[in-house]
Structure formats: C-alpha cells, structure tokens
C-alpha cells in the first residue's frame, strides 16, 4: 500500500462554528449565507444562518460580511528545503501558505541535494510531519539531479508518497528522455509536471524578449521558448497517453498550443501564476529584481491570453510558483539576480483585486481555479460539504492592506506585489481540520 501523498500538521481536530458567512464553493454549488459547523476536523453541518447546533466547547466565529471559501491548493511552491533554508524552510513556507488561505501545497524538487531518491523523500516527509502548518506533498525529480539523463526511481518514489514528478527549474530537454519518463509513468502513475523552455531559445535571457528588453539592453527570453516545448511535449503526451501538467504558462502562443493539444485529446493541463495574470514586462523598466522570474513577465497580449485561457478552462488552475530568495541575493544588478518571486500570501488578494473586483473574472471561477490544482495532481479537491475534511478559508473582501507593510510570514520578502494596495484579506485558514492561520487582529470567541 502506497503512502498517503500529503503529510504534515497532526490535526488536533478543531471544533468551531462559523456563523452567517457567505459560503461560496463552486465545487459543490454552494453560494449563500450559512452557518458552518466544524467538529473533530470535519465539516459536520451546513445550516441556515443562525440555526447551527453548537458543539460543547466549540469556538465561534462571526462570518458576517465575510466569505467562507474552500481552502486553496497550490501544486507548485518552492519550500527550499533541503539546502536553501536561508531562503525558506518547511515551517515558514507553509505558514506563508496558510496566511494566503492555502490548505495544502506541493513542493518542488530543485533543492540541494535535489529531491530524487526515496530516502530523501522519506526524510522530507518526516520533517513536514513535524514542521508543516499545512499538509505538504512532494514532487521528486523526473531525472536524477535534474540532469536530464537518467530517470529517478519513480516507482519506489511513488510508493514513498510522491505526488508526481517534475524537473521544475529546468526543462527535460531531450524528447527521448521525456518519452521514457512518460512510458515509465504507466507503471507507477503520478502526474508529470513540466517546466517548459528551450534553452537554445532562452539563451542567457533574463527577461521577456521584446520592446522592454530592447530598451533596457537585457537579453531576452522569447515566448517561443515556452511554446515550442509545450507543443512538442503535448504531442508526446497524446501519443503516450501520459498525464502531463504544464507549469507556469506565460505566453499567448502557449495558450494556443495547449488548446490545440486538448482539442486533439492529449491528457494535458496547465497552470498560470498570479504574476503572469497581473503584471507585464513593463514592470521590469524599474529594473526591480523582484520582477525577475522564469518564465518572465510578458506583454499585455500574453497577459490577456493567459486570462482568457484561465476563463475558458484551457488553463485549469492558478499556482503561485512561490519562489523565495534571500534579500541580499536579490539586492544586486538585475542581470545578476536569481529568478523568482514569492506569492503565497498575496495570490488571492492580488487576483481578487486585479481581476475579480474590476469584473474581469467571477469570484466563483477564481476560487475554483485556486482549488483545482488538487484534482490535477490526483488528490481530492478541497470542498465545503458535510462529512468532508475541514479545508476552509475565511476572507474579508472589503479590507485593504499594503503588501509588505507588516512583513511576511515567508522567510523572504522578494514579492513582486510589494507596496501594492490590495483588497481582501485572509482572516482564518483551516487545513485538514486544524487552524493553520489566524490573522493577528482576528479573534475567536467562545460559542
């Protein structure tokens, strides 16, 4: 029997009542004011407002003028453990997730050493069991050391609880190698998540290739670098019937390629990050290294295509690609800075502020896309339903806050939304039945 894929946070099984919250769960069709009772870590009751039966010793939470959503699921975060704990570690990374309303995350393997063996996976799962604030899944590497030349022991890793496999941070350059991984996947299952980029097109690029890179004299990464690889690998996935997920999509050509692959029946899915949904390469004009990420921020045309893809379901989910770095690593000239921005604490508020409030995307759709990552990696979707494990987040859509004004839960402060005024604040996150995060000013009271 294979291990369960999410580990962390031994749940004390909280009892509480959330009264008169606007419950919105597109996965179950809930959209109205209810009382929700959590007992022993499960959703025990969803009742008409003011009618819930309160368990003994339970805490009460006022949900008035607040929204109760299913907890979010992020299939793509970097917890930087082992080896880069000065950037982030399991405790801070999952605390950051909980503060953003996430009830589970999946960690990437580009650590030091690379997560490419069962003993290391086992050790990390032990660490997560001790330190994680929300359950964590791990995706080990597809190839040993992310070198692209030898497969990891995928079957053993799956037995040890691997969610799937990815060489994130790098593409699998060799089509032959990726095809072998896809064929081996028939033995062990587990999604293949792909960072798509052709190194011969990306070159030494540090930002999107276009007018802004021409202006700044920075080497560019063309959109084609991503799109040609997605087209190639979607074709492989279709042929091998291999469950394949494309990470952090950024270019309009990629959205076209993904839609075409799906229409042809390829078992593929895609994700987009809040920064690609909300920012463009114009943000790089300031040479602010927080705007340096891979794939890079692209143009308004790309951004609109990513939004459209998310709206019509070509792109199924929002993933943050939370990529923490230490301050002194980012405090260097743009060309020297490492790529990546944090994102867990700002994802919902940024998307809500930039896309929901202006009426570009409905709130229900955004909530669905923030939870869909679970299904894409073969895990149960967080949902608000009687008998389901309590994975919830309570948000106040009206509060505004300035990103970074009171620091971050993450160890890192390289957030591309720093300084922005955002609407909506996560007040409470319940992950796997336990309180994982509570906003400082937000109090629970006896029922």
């Amino acid at each position, binding site marked *: 029997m294979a291990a369960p894929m999410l580990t962390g946070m031994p749940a004390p099984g909280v009892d509480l009542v959330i009264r008169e919250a606007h419950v919105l769960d597109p996965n179950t069709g809930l959209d109205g004011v209810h009382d929700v009772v959590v007992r022993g870590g499960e959703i025990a009751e969803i009742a008409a407002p003011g009618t819930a039966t309160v368990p003994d010793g339970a805490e009460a939470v006022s949900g008035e003028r607040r929204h109760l959503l299913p907890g979010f699921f992020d299939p793509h975060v970097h917890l930087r453990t082992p080896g880069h704990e000065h950037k982030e570690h399991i405790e801070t990374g999952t605390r950051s997730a909980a503060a953003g309303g996430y009830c589970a995350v999946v960690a990437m393997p580009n650590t030091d050493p690379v997560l490419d063996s069962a003993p290391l996976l086992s050790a990390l799962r032990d660490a997560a069991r001790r330190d994680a604030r929300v359950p964590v899944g791990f995706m080990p590497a597809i190839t040993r050391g992310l070198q692209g030349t030898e497969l990891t022991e995928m079957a053993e890793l799956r037995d040890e609880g691997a969610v799937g496999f990815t060489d994130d941070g790098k593409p699998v350059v060799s089509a032959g190698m990726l095809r072998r991984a896809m064929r081996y996947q028939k033995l062990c299952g587990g999604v293949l998540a792909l960072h798509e980029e052709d190194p011969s097109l990306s070159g030494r690029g540090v930002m999107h*290739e276009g*007018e802004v890179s021409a202006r*700044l*004299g*920075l080497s560019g990464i*063309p959109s084609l670098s991503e799109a040609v690889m997605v087209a190639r690998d979607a074709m492989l996935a279709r042929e091998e019937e291999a469950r394949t997920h494309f990470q952090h999509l950024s270019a309009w050509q990629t959205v076209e390629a993904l839609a075409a692959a799906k229409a042809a029946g390829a078992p593929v899915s895609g994700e987009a990050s809040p920064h690609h949904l909300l920012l463009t390469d114009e943000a790089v004009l300031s*040479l602010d290294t927080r705007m340096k990420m891979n794939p890079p921020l692209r143009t308004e045309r790309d951004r609109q295509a990513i939004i459209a893809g998310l709206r019509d379901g070509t792109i199924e989910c929002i993933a943050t690609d939370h990529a923490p770095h230490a301050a002194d690593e980012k405090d260097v*000239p*743009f060309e*020297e800075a490492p790529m990546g921005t944090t994102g867990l604490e700002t994802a919902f508020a940024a998307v809500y502020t930039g896309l929901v409030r202006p009426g570009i995307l409905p709130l229900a759709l955004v909530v669905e896309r923030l939870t869909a990552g679970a299904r894409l990696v073969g895990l149960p979707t967080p949902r608000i339903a009687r008998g389901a494990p309590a994975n919830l987040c309570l948000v106040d859509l009206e509060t505004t806050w300035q990103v970074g004004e009171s620091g971050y839960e993450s160890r890192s402060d390289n957030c591309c939304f720093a300084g922005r005024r955002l609407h909506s604040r996560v007040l409470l996150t319940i992950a796997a039945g336990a309180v994982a995060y509570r906003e400082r000013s937000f109090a629970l009271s006896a029922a």
Partner: protein
Amino acid sequence: MMRHLLSIDDLDRDAIERILARAASFAEVSGREIKKLPTLRGRRVLNLFYENSTRTRSSFEIAAKTLSADVTNFSPSGSSVAKGESLKDTVQTLSAYDPAAIVVRHPHAGAAVMVSRWTPAAVINAGDGKHEHPTQALLDVYTLHRRLGALDGKRIWIVGDIEHSRVARSDILAFTRMGAHVTVCGPPTLIPPGIEALGATVRYTLDDLREADVVYALRMQKERMTDAYIPSLREYVARYQINGRRLGPRQVVMHPGPVNRGVEIAGEVVDSPQAVITAQVEAGVVVRMAVLYELLAGARSGAPEPSAPVLA
C-alpha cells in the same frame, strides 16, 4: 535639477541643451593656458570601474580634475570581488568616504540604478552592460551640434551590432529627443526585436545609406562570430563596412572608439575629414565636465549660475 545621470531618459530636451551650452562654455576654457576651474574644489569624485575602459575613465578623470575635484579610481576587479564582496557592500564602503559623485561602469545592465539606491552620492552611469552609456550619447550630440547645428530633421544611421551596444541605445534616445530621425542597420541577428519602440527605423542593408546625414559605425567584436550571430567577419565586412564606395561626400562619420580599422569602418574613412572621431574624444571631456557641473555645482550652491566659468 537632476540628482543622477543613469539614462538619457532622465533628461528632457531642455536639460540636454543646458548641458550642451555648459559644455560649450567649458570648451573655451580648454583653449586657455591654465586649464583649471575651482568649481568642485574639495569635493570627491570616485571612478568605480568594474570593466576596463581607459578612455572613458580617463575622460571622466580629466573632466573632474579640470573642475578641481579630487579623483580616486577604484577598480574592484581582482581584489574585493574575488573575496566575494558584493556591489552593494563596495558602494556602501566607498560612500563612507563621502564622495560627491560616483562614476560607475559595470558589465551588467541596471548596475548604475542599483548603485544610486545605495549611496547618497550623485551617480553617473558610465556604461552598464548593454543598457546605456548616457555621457557618450551627450558627447555625440555635442559633436554633431558643433558640426551640423541643430539636429532637427537630420537623418542619422547607426550601423552594426545594435544588440550588444549601450552606445546605440543611448544614442537613439538622445538623437530622437533632439529631433533627428534615427535608422539602425545591421545583420538581423544583431538587431534586438522591439528596438523600434525606442523610435528607430530598422534596415538590414546599407542600400539607402546615402539618405543619411550622419553615419555612426559601431565596433564589431570578433566574439559575435564565434557566438554565431554572424556567419563570418568577411561577410559582415562585405555588407556593412562603412567605406569610400558607400559614403557620400558630405556625410559625417562617427564611431565610439576604439576603431577596428578595416572591419566596421575602412581606414581611409577614419582618416578623412568627414570623420569626427577625434572631435568626439575631445567633446568627451567638456561634456563630462558639464554633467558633473549640473549634478554637483548647480545643486549644491543654489547660487545664481555664473554666466561664464571663473578661472582659477
């Protein structure tokens, strides 16, 4: 009053004209026997050069010394860099010497902008990666102004490796700001996609070079061949060299130096009266004096500006 000179974008047309006028007044001083002004006496200028450039560094050095500033050259290559000291640490350390200005040359785009965030000194970008080299552009404008008068409506062709040229970027911005039409021309592999957004027209052949009033040749580096940007230097020379066969009799020829004779530009052109390459070098000193004056003298005293420089 500007605080730093990081990009030509920091300057509007008025600011550029003010610098040109100031440079012209300094040029008169250079003609006199005692080449020294007391303007920046007792103030420190640091040349922080992470890349070798004897020309640019000595031009800044002479400019600062002519204004009586104390100049220190600091070349971190080999010493502190090898010990792992970051640019930020270096700049903060040097700032403890209370420099009035730091002139920075760095192999990476954006370095000067970062330096300006870490120091109270005025920062002058003396070339950052492929990004910008604003004082070069100002001396180019100054040189052309002297030769042709106002640049409004003039046609300027910049020929060669646009992709890797910070001079080209600053020049496009400065020339267009002064009213000229700029065309960039070179092998398509060396013209960055999106460069039109800076206001330049793109051409891939020299067929219409005769329409230009000014032809600006850029240095072609041999590495571009080994990096496979171009098939061979021979083919480059055949298609893009500025030579007597291609030039009209009244076209002005420029080059940022140092020249590869016989590669991007023919020797006979370098030596012809059409070339203003030596004038560009001379202009470098007075224009950099003017920039230092704008950043340091004007800002500090707040006193009415002297109509002519006072001799020491």
